[in-house]
Structures are given as structure tokens and as C-alpha cells.
């Protein structure tokens, strides 16, 4: 074990890009090595991260606090609030009770709000963490933090680290794909950037409008035959140059053009949902021709089947500063069925065991109500970094479990806190990495996804 780890680190530190040998988007084209073994035994091979941007209200969905109903309208004692800074509300704002009825589900009896009926059906597959916490209380920095471990742009995202470490299993699609629905994402492209890792590890956007991948379609009038004959000309001329110059980069470029050509057919094949049966489309609630969260979830499953390593689906819209009830209702309507269907579908295909599904936002929402006459807001909740909930499924995570607890107001964590860094450490662990040693040397420093602060694997959620 030590030997392989040492070898691995050495390789990490020196071989920019070499880790991703053979990946479609890597600068190195060697079909014989398409994937990289992690240094430790892994439970998960792939990740689908359903990022609920804007921050869903844990108090109205997962973390049931009847006490809030009892004291609704009264402020929270200042001793509880401490020095916490808020984005919009004042700390003396009154408490708001949960907006939905909660019920117990499955054999495990996990408590879930009734506005998530589909999630209830897979209660025995998921692990709900009710004790997540983060350092950031504004969207952009918190989203960037959740995805990269640092609150400002410039560090590699989780997906980039993972494909940097594991490579990918397809030559025909990108290793790390990003999709989005809902409104604009606060954290922007920094959330899927490769940071200081080689740019080939940046998440590739699969878009809803126009070409799914930028410039994947040949220009107007250029038939596949014309594209092929042009590529042949390019290859022949490049080959001549290669013979003259003896430069391996020319050969690399020739290979990239061939991969581009393959991508031009594999991407449409991926997007074409004709081969999906009606009951699968119905399971996801998906109109095959319309971009939607449901379609993104179905595409995610198809990508995993085709060897994509890491998939981000961003759904932005949970920022319920006003009318948290209506917000939850509409966003659950968009995401609940498809998120749950994805887990069911992966399971029935035997893919859930090595695919880790993560569902959650960048922070939580306050037990206090947000009301602002000036802004025309009422019955909303502000940002709450101290405690929030997420769920995970598959990939070596406990089934039908909850982890962590908050106080009776849902304000502070009282048991088993899970910092975002701990979650990162755990995700890496499931993929076969030790977050302490999985690093990249830059200017003499070993950079890690979990940064310099302490982080630990959450053993309590591992199956």
C-alpha cells in the first residue's frame, strides 16, 4: 500500500495531465490506458452531484422542528445566535415554524416533509445528514466553497480532483460533465473549474440551448462527408509537418482532431433518448425533447453507463427569502421525482453500488423568518451556515440512515457535525483516496481538496 501511494503522489506532483491518460479531454492520447486505479480500495467509481443551488430549507424538508411552531413569532435568544452575521435579516427576527407536515418513511422511518413524496419512496436507499455546516453565508462564496473547498475562485472543483485522480472510462465523452437548470448559478463557472489542475479537468458544460457541447455541430452546409474530407486534409498536412518537425505535439493534435470527430457523433447519441422506454421516461417524468432537471437526471444515468466519471447537475432556485413554502413546493415539484427516479433507476440497473449520488445545497436557512417591507418579502428564511441537511445514496453510503442532529430550534448542531470539508474527505474516501495525501504540488505547497484545516472521514455514514 505504501509503495503504491508513494508512486501515486510522485505521479501527481510531476505529471501534469498524465493522470488522465487516454481521457477524451486529456492532452495525451493513449487508448491503452483509459482509467486510473485509486491508491486505496474504493466503493464508488462515479459521482452524480445534484447541487441544489440557492440553499433549500432544511427546516421545511428534512430537519423537523416542532418546537419552532410552538414559539413561532418570538425571537431566538441572542445567546443562541452569538455573533453570526446575516445577509438580510436582523438577528432579532422572529421564529418561523416548519411549513409542511412531516411523515416517517420506509423501514428506516426517516422523517421527510410531505412535499417530497418521491423521496419518501427511496427512504431506505438514502442517508440524510442533518448536521452539515459551512464557513460561508453568501451564495457565491458558499457554492464555490462547497464545490472546491475554498470560498474564492481559483481552486480545483471536486469533479476536477476526481477525474484528475481517476481518469475516465470513455474516449468518446468528457470525463466531467456539468448540466444546469433553473436560474443562473451564483458561484458561476468557478464551481466546476479545474483551478490550478490542468485545464483538461475542467467540467464540460452540457448545454440546454444550441449545441449541447459548444461547437459540437458542424457549421451550416458542412455534411459529415465534407467534415471528414476536411479532417483528412488536415491530418495529411499535419502528418507531413510531423515528419518534417519530429514533434510529438503534432501527433497529439492529430489525435485530438480524431477525438473531436468521434465526439461529434457520440454526443448526439447520448442526447438521443429514443432508446429509452416509455416507462423510464415516465419514471423520471421526462419530456425527451425539452431540457429539464428530469432530462438532466436521465442523461446523467446514460453518461454513467457510457463511462463519464463525474456529473454535476445544478438546479438553482432555492433561495427562499420570501415565501419559503411556495419555493419548496415549486422546486420539489421540479426535482423530487427525477432525483428519486435516478436513484431507483441506477439501483435497478445495478449501478447504484458504485455510483455516489449527492443531493443538497450550499448552506441552510434560518429558523427565523425573513420579512422586509422595503424589499416586499414575507414568510421567507435567510441564509444559515451553522446547520443544514443533504442526502446521499449509493457508492458505499449507509442505506436508510440519518446522521447528525441539531438543537430543538434547528439552529446549532448538537451531534455529529459534518463540515463541508468532512464531506469532501468522505467522498474522496469512498472513491479510494486519502484526502490527506491526495494532493497537488504547486509552488512548494501540497494543495488538497480539504485545504489546510482539519477534516475527517465520516465513518458513521459509510455502509
Amino acid at each position, binding site marked *: 500500500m505504501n509503495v503504491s*501511494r508513494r508512486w501515486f*503522489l510522485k505521479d501527481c506532483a510531476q505529471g501534469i495531465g498524465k493522470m488522465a491518460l487516454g481521457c*477524451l*479531454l*486529456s492532452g495525451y492520447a493513449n487508448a491503452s490506458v483509459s482509467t486510473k486505479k485509486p491508491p486505496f480500495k474504493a466503493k464508488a467509481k462515479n459521482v452524480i452531484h445534484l447541487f441544489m443551488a440557492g440553499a433549500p430549507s432544511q427546516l421545511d424538508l428534512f430537519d423537523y422542528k416542532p418546537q419552532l411552531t410552538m414559539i413561532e413569532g418570538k425571537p431566538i435568544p441572542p445567546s443562541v445566535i452569538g455573533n453570526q452575521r*446575516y*445577509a*438580510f435579516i436582523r438577528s432579532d427576527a422572529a421564529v418561523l415554524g416548519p411549513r409542511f407536515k412531516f411523515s416517517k418513511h420506509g423501514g428506516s422511518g426517516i422523517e421527510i416533509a410531505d412535499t417530497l413524496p418521491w423521496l419518501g419512496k427511496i427512504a431506505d436507499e438514502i442517508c440524510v445528514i442533518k448536521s452539515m455546516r459551512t464557513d460561508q453565508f*453568501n451564495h457565491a*462564496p458558499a457554492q464555490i466553497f462547497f464545490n472546491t473547498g475554498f470560498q474564492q*475562485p*481559483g481552486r480545483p472543483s471536486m469533479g476536477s480532483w476526481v477525474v484528475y485522480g481517476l481518469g475516465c472510462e470513455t474516449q468518446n465523452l468528457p470525463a466531467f460533465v456539468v448540466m444546469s437548470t433553473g436560474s*443562473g448559478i*451564483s*458561484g*458561476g*463557472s*468557478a464551481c466546476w473549474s479545474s483551478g490550478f489542475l*490542468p*485545464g483538461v479537468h475542467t467540467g*464540460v458544460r452540457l*448545454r*440546454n*440551448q*444550441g*449545441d449541447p457541447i*459548444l*461547437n*459540437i455541430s*458542424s*457549421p451550416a*452546409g*458542412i*455534411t459529415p462527408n*465534407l467534415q471528414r*474530407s*476536411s*479532417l483528412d*486534409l*488536415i491530418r495529411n*498536412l*499535419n502528418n*507531413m509537418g510531423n515528419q*518534417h*518537425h519530429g514533434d510529438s*505535439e*503534432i501527433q497529439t*493534435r*492529430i489525435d*485530438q*482532431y480524431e477525438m*473531436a470527430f468521434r465526439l461529434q457523433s457520440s454526443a448526439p447519441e447520448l442526447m438521443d433518448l429514443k432508446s429509452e422506454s416509455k416507462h423510464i421516461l415516465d419514471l423520471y417524468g421526462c419530456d425527451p425533447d425539452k431540457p429539464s432537471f428530469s432530462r438532466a437526471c436521465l442523461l446523467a444515468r446514460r453518461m454513467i453507463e457510457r463511462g463519464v466519471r463525474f456529473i454535476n447537475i445544478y438546479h438553482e432556485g432555492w433561495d427562499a427569502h420570501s415565501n419559503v413554502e411556495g419555493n419548496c413546493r415549486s422546486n420539489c415539484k421540479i426535482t423530487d421525482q427525477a432525483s428519486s427516479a435516478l436513484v431507483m433507476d441506477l439501483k435497478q440497473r445495478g449501478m447504484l453500488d458504485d455510483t455516489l449520488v449527492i443531493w443538497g445545497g450550499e448552506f441552510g436557512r434560518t429558523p427565523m423568518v425573513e420579512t*422586509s417591507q*422595503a*424589499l*416586499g418579502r414575507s414568510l421567507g428564511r435567510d441564509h444559515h451556515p451553522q446547520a443544514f441537511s443533504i442526502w446521499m445514496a449509493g457508492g458505499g453510503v449507509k442505506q436508510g440512515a440519518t446522521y447528525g442532529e441539531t438543537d430543538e430550534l434547528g439552529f446549532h448542531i448538537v451531534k455529529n457535525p459534518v463540515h463541508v470539508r468532512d464531506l469532501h474527505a468522505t467522498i474522496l474516501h469512498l472513491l479510494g483516496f486519502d484526502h490527506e495525501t491526495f494532493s497537488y504540488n504547486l*509552488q*512548494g*505547497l501540497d494543495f488538497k481538496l480539504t485545504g*489546510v484545516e482539519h477534516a475527517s472521514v465520516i465513518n458513521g455514514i459509510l455502509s
Partner: protein
Amino acid sequence: MNTLFQILLSITLLSLNDNGEVEFNRDIRPIISQKCLKCHGLDESNRKGKLRLDDREHALKGGRSGKSAIDVGKPDSSELYLRLISSIESEQMPPPSSKITLTHAEKEKIKKWIESGANYETHWAFRPVHKPAIPKVKDNAWPSNEIDFFVLSKLEKEKLSYSPPADKYSLIRRVYLDLLGYPPSPLEVDAFISDNREQAYIELIDKILQSTHYGERWARKWMDLARYADTNGYEKDRYRSIWPWRDWLIKSINSDMPFNDFTVKQLAGDLLTNPTSDDIVATGFHRNTMLNEEGGIDPLEYRYYSMVDRVATTGVTWLGLTFGCAQCHTHKYDPITQKDFYGLMAFLNNTSEVDFEVPQPVITEKREKIKNDSSKLKGQLLGMYLKHHKVDNSADVDLFINKKLESWMEIKRKTIGNWATIVPVEMSSNLPKLTLQNDGSVLASGDITKQDFYEVSFRTDLKNIFAIKLEALPDSSLPGGGPGLCYYEGPKGDFFLSNFEVIDQNGKKKFSDAKESYFKNNFGGNPASAKQAIDDDLQTGWSCAGRYGEKHEAIFVLDSQNELSPEFKIRMTFGRHYACPLGKFRVSVSQFPYGLPSNMDTDVQKLLFKSISKMNSSEKQKMVDALLFDAPELKTLVDEIIRLNKSLPANEKTLVFRERPSDNKRITFLHNRGEYLQPKEEIQPEIPSFLPKIPEGVIKDRLAFANWIVSDKNPLTVRVFVNRNWQTFFGRGIVKTTEDFGVQGDFPSHPELLDWLSVYFVENNWSMKKLHRKIVSSATYKQSSLKTFSSDNDNVFLSRGPRVRMEAEMIRDSVLKSCGLLSAKIGGPSVYPPQPQGVTSEGTYGGFNWKPSEGEDRYRRAIYTFSKRTAPYAMFNTFDAPSGEFCMVRREVSNTPLQALTLLNDIVIIEASQGFARTIIANQKSFNENLSFVFRSILTRPPSEQEIVLLTNFYNATLNDLKQIPDSISKITGSIQQKSTEQAVWALLIRSLLNLDEALVKR
């Protein structure tokens, strides 16, 4: 014999210097630095066994054990060496658990070093720069200039040979790409090829260096460091205007501004004696930091992050040091303490971040003309008024006007009321600095927060005060002209008065009413009136959105039950989810009856209560103007004057630094673990102790720091700059780690050459053009880049010419230039060349609409492309251009299928090849002439026989193919009218050529 053999062996093994000695900086420092300093360095918190090995004194002193780590001359009794070779696991160093090991050769080096005295040397980069002697070489025929002697001497030592010179086509292409960022035209090439004079090349260089496009090419390099973008970054990522700084860069580089001036102006141009507007614009360098405008952020937190970025960027850009690490803890490898980091921050920290109006002659001229027109019209007012009232006898005018004025004043006195300005006797706030102005107003400045409060105390002899008036006043020093201090998230100049309280000895006074001249809420449809500032609800208040740069008034009527004491104070609370206190205000009081709030000029309001006969002529003129402006019979003309005044075009603004006044300096703190919320002790501006000091007696401000950066005592700036330039030409720096000259950075491949060039640069008045001229005229630069000539795989020893994939901008510019579309226009606001739909709108916050520019702006140089941080221009992003989110010293060079897709299918390439095909058809030349022209425009050289065959075959085959699919033709030519099959084939052929490796590589 045996001994001699051993010596020879050890020399080869250790690759020691020419005399067979160990050189600390070259041989020993890398070992100690990489293998020991993590635990035995300057960073106390990580130090093990209290042992330091980063300098000789500490190493000899030893650590906790008290045992010296080094017994000079005797490795076998030196703990340092014994630990390295120990076979007992618990004694081994580095500890086996660290997984760090030393090779046998490294251990031998340490041994030899201890034997020879264990001398430490100052790290090479921190030593003063001296001009080295030009080395002797065996082959004196090769060198073209001094550079070549250094390079050749090394090559000879390494037993490598140089490459033959590049052919003239390659050379002119290479030097055009390097200096201008695009290839030469066939005409320019012909002129150079046919010129066989020896001086043809140097004359070509001199001509190129005069081109105004040189500045565009090299400004872009600098913008990578400055993290330039046209938006603020983070969530909202809104537009900012800082392109005047980019234009300043281009202009300065074109005029070959000495790099020391270039530096000082960018760091502290505002502090120069009598700074020009250009000097102030230059300070935009450090305003390129991001600005978080997300609702609810803590603005000072993000200002702190910007400061951290500024220190790190300054460190990397000028000093080649990674100061960034020291934000949280003392540097593990370099002698930079955490205190040093904040000492540097203190130099840069005392600034206000303001908008600067850049005076532009065109705008000034337009403004003058409009003002002139307006004052002409104003001059007609009186005549029209008199004519309207049929006063034609000039003797009667004065009397008439006085009468009219008197009655107008009479009416106005009633509505405006008689207000007495009261002047504060004491002022305080939570943070902003309040300064009393001569006119009794109060100006706020400095930092602001989301919940600011002002307390202003008064003492007055006036009795029976019935109402209090608050004037919210504009001022040119305020963002957006005021009256508020808001500079982010809300509109510039916005304010939100959430609470207005009057407190006297009897406590808080009650109000019976409040009125205002104007109100509007910036966010949400709800009102924001003066009444809401006295409702004790901090979420509501008075705001005047939409009319910035104007005066607004609110009056607060006191409840008549109890009288106000002679001493009282006003407490105002400001803010909402963003910081927005008042920037300038004035308080006045009135007895009963009080008037109404009004937009009327305050001076005029006061003069209403002065008798006309006592007014001086300017006062009188003011009142007559007010009367005329208020006269209904002149409304049409007055409206026209107002319209003209509102139509004054504004100068472009750019972001700059302004030093804070000495009575309101910003204090810098050391932040525990680098965290904003953990400020500790106050820190004074200070240069890190391992670097030369700022001379005694010099005030340590931003200007002193800037001067220090470029002082001849500072060994880093010039080396770092020269090295970065070298990297641009050769694809690799003399110091490979262009961003890190610290002990973890690479040792220079040619240390003497670096120093020689550094001295040459300074001796030549820090002229970048002369430096570039020297580099490109060297034989080293002129070598062929063919790998076949050289076994020096990474070209560390420069045994061949450079071969580097072109940068994103260079690729775009070259495509457009080759195809005849590139616009030569320099400067101006950024433009929006076409890119695939959705790049800036899908999934980005606010869905930025990228409306492609039309006409010339569609084909401007890449440097002018609008740069949105959260959604960068797709093509540049694909080719590794930075997003402007942090300082970028060395771009990555990738080679991906997404690049292939871009070059094959992107609209820019398609439009360029269509445009070029149109030109070819219009030229009506023979096929061979056309083919040669196309090939040479794109690749500079003429095609080979073999290439002509391939291309001709492609042409003929495609011509046939297209005949089968006639519908495709107009799509490929890009115009429904253009259905020429030949034109379509040319477009396809040109597109293919643009995709060749050779078209994308500088070689």
C-alpha cells in the same frame, strides 16, 4: 590512480561546478529546501525539534537536543549527515513516515558540502544583480550578440550544439507573432525575403517595434498578471468600466515607457507630484480585483480579500515570490513571515477605491458646446420675459424686475419657510469619517458597513423649534455624485435612511409628521418615504433611488407637546442588505410655520429672506435666474435649457486608487490564520527583513513602496521581469518557475545571462523595446526550431529556436489577420465578437445577453473582447486564457478535442474563411496564384510541391462533392446570393488550413 578515478567519478555523479566544488545555491539548497524545511524552516508552528536548517547559524546551534546539526568539516560527526544515512528507523531523517527520501547522490552532496565547510549562501535571487563578464566561447563565429555568448558557453559545456538558423519565412513569422501577435502579410514577407542585405532583419525589427499593434500584443501579457476583466466577478458579475486602464497600458507600452515608471504609476501614480490624469488611470492595476455585489455580503470582508489578492499579486508580478502563503502562516520555505505579509499589505491598504472620470477631449468639446448653447438660451430668458410683459423701456427694467422678484419671493417664502442651518458641535459614527464643511454641511468618507449610524450633536439658541430639515446633498467626491455612499450591489450614490431620531435631555423626541422632496426605493415596489425613517422599523426608511447627483430634502416635524432643549443630538441609522449611508448632509431648523421640502437651491432658499436692496449683484443675479426659471411664461425655453443641461455627455469612468487622508488612515492588522474575522495586532508598513530596506527618513507609504520595488537595491523586480519576457519568446523562462523566485523555485538555467540581461535592461532606461530588440536579434532566437537538430529535449539549453502553441488571443488575431478581416482600430470600450449562443446566458446569474457586435467591432483584436469573469469568451477559455479571477503568470498550454471543435466549427473561424473566400473569388486570379496566396497568408511560407498536390486534390474532389449537394453551397459561402461552388470550396480549404498545427504554433 584509484583516487583520481574516484574524484572523477564523484564529479560526474554530483555534476558539481567546473572546479568540482559544491555550490550551495545550486546543489545543496534544493535538497534542504525540498526535503528538510517543511519541518525545519522559518515557520515556527510546524518546526520539529526546534531545529532550523534554513540558515547556518541555526543549523550549527542545533535544536532542542542542544546538539549541533553540523560539525563543520566532519560529516561523520554531523548529526545532519548521520541521520540521513542512519539505518535505524527511529533515527532516520527525513522520517520514513514522511515518504520523503534522499538519493544517494544527494546524500553525497551533503557530505561533501559539510566537508568543505558547510557554507550557506544567500539564495541566488536575493543577491544583488551584478553585470557578469561575457563568457569566452570556442566558436566565435556563431554569436550575434551578448546573449549568444552565454548560451553558447553553456551549450559547449553541455556538449550540445546549436541549430542552424531558421529559414527566413519561419523567422519573419516568428518575430511577427512574438512582437505583434499575428503573422506578416505575403507582401511584408516578400519584401523581407527579397532583401538580402545583412541589416534587413534588424531593420525589420525596428519597423515592427514602431507598430502601434506592438502595445496591444504586450499589454495582453500584462493583463494576465493584473487579472483584468470587464465585470466585477462573483455572483452578480456586473459590468465595470476599467478599459481606460487597458488603453493606458497599450499607449504606455507603445511609447516604451520605462518599466520603472510603468511600475510606479500603476502602484502609486496618484501620489506623484501633480499627477496627470494618465497617472491616476494607471492605478487601475490593483482595481482589477473582484467586487462582490451579492445581496447581504459584508463589504469589508470582500475588501479584505481584495487586499490579500493585491499583496499576493504584487508579490508574484514584481518580486516573483509567493507571498500568498504567508496570509495564514509564516512561509514554509521562503523567509517570509506572516507579519511580512501584513507589513506589505499596510503599504497598499490606505486607499479609497473610487471611480475616476477620464477627461477625453472629444467629450470635453461636446460638453463645452452644449454648455455654450445652454448659456446662450439662458441669456435670452430675460429679454423674452420683458418682451412677454411688454417692458420695452430700458429705464423701467430694474423697477419691473424688482417688483416681480419681490412678489415671487413673497410667495416662495411661504412655501419654503425660513430655515436656519445649524452646525454640529460634535459628530461621531460607527466607522465613516464625518467632516464639517464650510457651508455647515457634513461630508462622510472612508469605509462603510451594512448598518452605519451617525450621531451629530447641536447647541442652538433658537427657541420653539418646530421642524428639522435634513438635506441629502450631492458631491463630486461621492460614488455616482451622491448623496449616498453606496458603491456596490445598489446603485452608486444610493442611500437608505432607516431611522432618524432626535434626542435631547428629556430623551427621544416624538414626531408628528415627515415629508420629503422626493422618494423612491431601489429594490422592490414599496415606497421609502421620510415617514418610514421615523417609524422605528429598521427595515423601512427614506431613500431617493434614481436621482443621484441631486439634492433631496426631508423635513421631520416635531410633536408640539414638548419643546426641544438647546442641546440635542440627531442619530441617523443607515443601511439595508447593502451599505448605503448618506455621503453628505446638512441640518437646519425652523419655527412654526415651517415650509415644505423643495428641490430649490439652498442659497436661493436663504436669499428669499434677504431684502433685495441688500443683495450684492451676484446674489441678485441668482434670484433673478431663479425667478425666470420658475416663470410659467418661459416654460418652453426653460425646459429646453434643462434638457440641454441633462444631455451633457459624461466622460468615461475608470476604477482607480485614491490615498486616504492622513487624519483617517486605514489601520492594518495581522489576521490570525488569515481570517477576516480574526484581526490581531496592528501592523506598520514594512519590507520583509530579507530584502533591502526603504531608506531611512522616507515616509513609508504606497509611493515609497512603489519606488522601492524599482530601486536598484531590489534584486528581484528586474530579474523577474526580464525572465517573464524571456519566457514569452522562448516558451520557458531562464528561471522555469516564472512565478516563483523563492527557494522552491527552479535554479536558473543561465544565471549569468539573466543577470546580464537585467543590467542591460536597467542601463537602457528600463526599455522593454530595447530588451525585446536584443532578444530577437540574438542568434539564439534566430535558430531553427526543428527538433531533429537537437537532443536537448525540453530545450533547457536553448540548442534550438522556440516552439510554442500560440495563445488564445494570438490564434484569433492570426485567423482574422490572415483572412483579411482584422480591424486595426486601437482602444475603446470592449466589444462583443460572436460566440456560440448561451455562453454568457445559460446558467449564469442574471443571464447576461451577449449581443454580437456589428461591423468593424466584430473583428477587433482579441484584447478588446469583453471579458466576463463568470462566463469567459468561449474560444479564449478553450485555449487556456485566464478568466481574470486571479493573477496568472504562466498559462497552461493544453491540446484538446474541444480546441479542435472550436477551430473546425466556431463562428469566428467560419466567418473568417468565408470572408477570405469572398476575397479570393473577387481577386479573379488563377487557381495556383490563389492557392499560394491563401497558403502564404495563413502559414507565411509557400506551399511545397507535395502540399500543392494534396490541396489541389482536395479542391477538385470537394468541387465534385459540392455539385451533389447544391443546397449546401450558399450555407458554406455564408451568403444566399453567393452560390459559387468555387467560393464554397475555397472557404472549406481555408478553414482546413486555419486548423493546421503549423497555423497554431509559433515555431
